[in-house]
């Protein structure tokens, strides 16, 4: 029994509720939001440290014993994801203060923001498959509101599509849970794992596995199911885009990782083989999109899809080394994607357009912005010693060890093309002839820049300190590759 695990959920919840009452007073809202998000971050770090020193933390809600009630489980993976989520939440909040606009702030931007953090943290922490659905819905509900808040034409139009796609995927989620429940008769994730292993390899389990892959694949934007993403993420303003890009798809990726390491390990040849093929195609499609467009938002959005593919390729290879690489890359990608979205948000604010052909010469007036972007872009592509490097090398090496030369080759080649796509922004946006932009005097660049600078510093430190962080990440991967640890901690056998 450990109630520390609930703090990263309860603090955002109560902050959100308190914020609802102060919706007219923007200054008070900002202070409460800052304090709430710092507290969440502190609680998350504390939880993470506890998990590292004392092993997996669990909590049976209302004291119902493990397989019967809802259990919250914080293993190393979920706790570091909660830390990353809280960090990104805090930084996006800082950025929002000067960019989101008073109108949005008065119309419940901050409460919804914290409900989103609650949903994401909850989805990472829960140990019950139906509870995961509930947290998904909390997160999605908040994301619908954030996406539509402001009510411009493009936002309304894209929200409808996003809503429809997610309603269908939620329906499929419940269907998948229903089938799983009819087979194993339990909802506790550790217990499901035990029962499925007793059951052995059977056709129905493979069907359920693929159904779960479809459900989480829609959320995580893998190959045939990513079609909604470039449109929907294009619509909202930069801080919301950063939150979505860094957190929402990663929740889908985390869920695939969790279910495909804990539940569906009976017929690896089929399920993980399928995941591998899909992840490789995802990388290829993402890279094509990232190279093809001349719009800064679209380029970074397609880079999300590339990263999802890379992480899932590591999961599909399914060795301890590749899982370590995936976890490394997952955390790296969350941080660096948020940083990049915030940086291009500043570029768009200054120039008033997201079209690269109408930009140029920003480096003259904004050298800080330019060099932060440059470092973030190198980190994204995985140039050593920055943060993307170690994750990618582990994934590629594990892929080659497993005899998958094609997949590893695609991952390697994708880094090069990703680098090309982000350098395209650098060369066209920052270099070239300086232009005059109407809006540029009003933009509080210095304030806005603090947020991505914090994230970029985190990314650089994450890369430089990967040696020191390695034990933490490998503990996380250890739990993934050996579900016994997770099961023992939850069921206390």
């Amino acid at each position, binding site marked *: 029994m450990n109630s520390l695990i609930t703090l990263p959920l309860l603090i955002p919840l109560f902050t959100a509720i308190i914020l609802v009452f102060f919706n007219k007073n923007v200054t008070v809202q900002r202070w409460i939001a800052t304090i709430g998000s710092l507290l969440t971050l502190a609680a998350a770090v504390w939880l993470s440290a506890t998990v590292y020193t004392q092993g997996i933390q669990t909590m049976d809600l209302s004291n119902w014993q493990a397989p019967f009630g809802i259990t919250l489980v914080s293993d190393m993976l979920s706790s570091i994801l909660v830390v990353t989520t809280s960090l990104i939440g805090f930084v996006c909040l800082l950025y929002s203060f000067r960019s989101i606009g008073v109108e949005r702030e008065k119309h419940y931007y901050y409460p919804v923001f914290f409900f989103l953090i609650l949903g994401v943290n909850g989805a990472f922490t829960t140990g019950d498959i*139906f509870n995961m659905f509930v947290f998904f819905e909390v997160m999605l509900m908040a994301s*619908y509101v954030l996406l539509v808040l402001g009510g411009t*034409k493009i936002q309304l*139009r894209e929200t409808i599509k996003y809503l429809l796609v997610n*309603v269908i995927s939620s329906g499929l989620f419940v*269907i998948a849970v229903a089938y799983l429940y009819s087979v194993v008769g339990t909802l506790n994730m550790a217990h499901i794992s035990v029962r499925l292993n007793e059951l052995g390899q059977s056709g129905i389990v493979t069907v359920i596995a693929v159904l779960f892959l479809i459900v989480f694949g829609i959320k995580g934007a893998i190959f045939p199911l990513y079609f909604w993403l470039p449109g929907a993420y*294009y619509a909202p303003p930069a801080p919301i885009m950063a939150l979505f890009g860094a957190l929402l798809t990663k929740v889908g990726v985390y869920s695939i990782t969790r279910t495909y390491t804990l539940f569906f390990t009976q017929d690896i040849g089929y399920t993980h083989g399928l995941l591998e093929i899909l992840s490789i195609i995802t990388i290829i499609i993402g890279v094509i999109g990232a190279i093809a467009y001349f719009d800064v938002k679209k380029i970074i959005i397609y880079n999300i899809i590339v990263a999802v593919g890379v992480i899932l390729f590591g999961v599909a290879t399914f060795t301890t080394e590749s899982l370590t690489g995936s976890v490394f890359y997952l955390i790296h990608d969350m941080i660096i994607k948020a940083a990049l979205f915030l940086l291009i948000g500043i570029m768009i604010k200054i120039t008033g357009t997201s079209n690269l052909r109408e930009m140029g010469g920003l480096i003259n007036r904004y050298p800080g912005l330019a060099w932060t972007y440059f470092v973030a872009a190198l980190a994204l592509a995985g140039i050593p010693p920055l943060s993307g490097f170690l994750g990618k090398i582990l994934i590629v090496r594990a892929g080659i060890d497993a005899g998958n030369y094609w997949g590893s080759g695609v991952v390697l080649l994708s880094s090069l093309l990703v680098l090309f796509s982000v350098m395209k922004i650098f060369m066209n946006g920052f270099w070239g002839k300086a232009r005059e932009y109407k809006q540029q005097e009003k933009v509080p660049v210095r304030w806005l820049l603090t947020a991505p600078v914090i994230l970029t510093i985190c990314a650089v430190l994450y890369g430089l300190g990967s040696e020191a962080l390695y034990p933490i990440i490998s503990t996380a991967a250890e739990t993934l590759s050996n579900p016994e640890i997770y099961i023992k901690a939850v069921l206390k056998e």
Partner: protein
Amino acid sequence: MEILMSLLIGVIFMSATYLMLSKSLLRIIVGTGLLSHGVHLLLLTMGGLKRGAAPLLGQQAEAYTDPLPQALILTAIVISFGITALFLVVAYRSYQELGTDNMELMRGKEGNE
């Protein structure tokens, strides 16, 4: 009984898919409502239809109905109710703003250069 339910669920899913493929926004929303009904029925059927006494109440009964699917459905109903309400509001607002409820006319071309 389970077979009959499965057929019914199949028909509901079929109609929901048909409605969701239409151009009109309102029909799509009705389709999503129907989809969630189908999902809830499926959840109920998967737990096994009523056999045995109510749990906790009839303490000496030989068999009990599984209460869990019902609890899950209750949760899922509340969620889908909330989402349908939001969907309707967004649809109404976008009809005001965009002047159309035809999905064919709601394609986005931003950034496609």
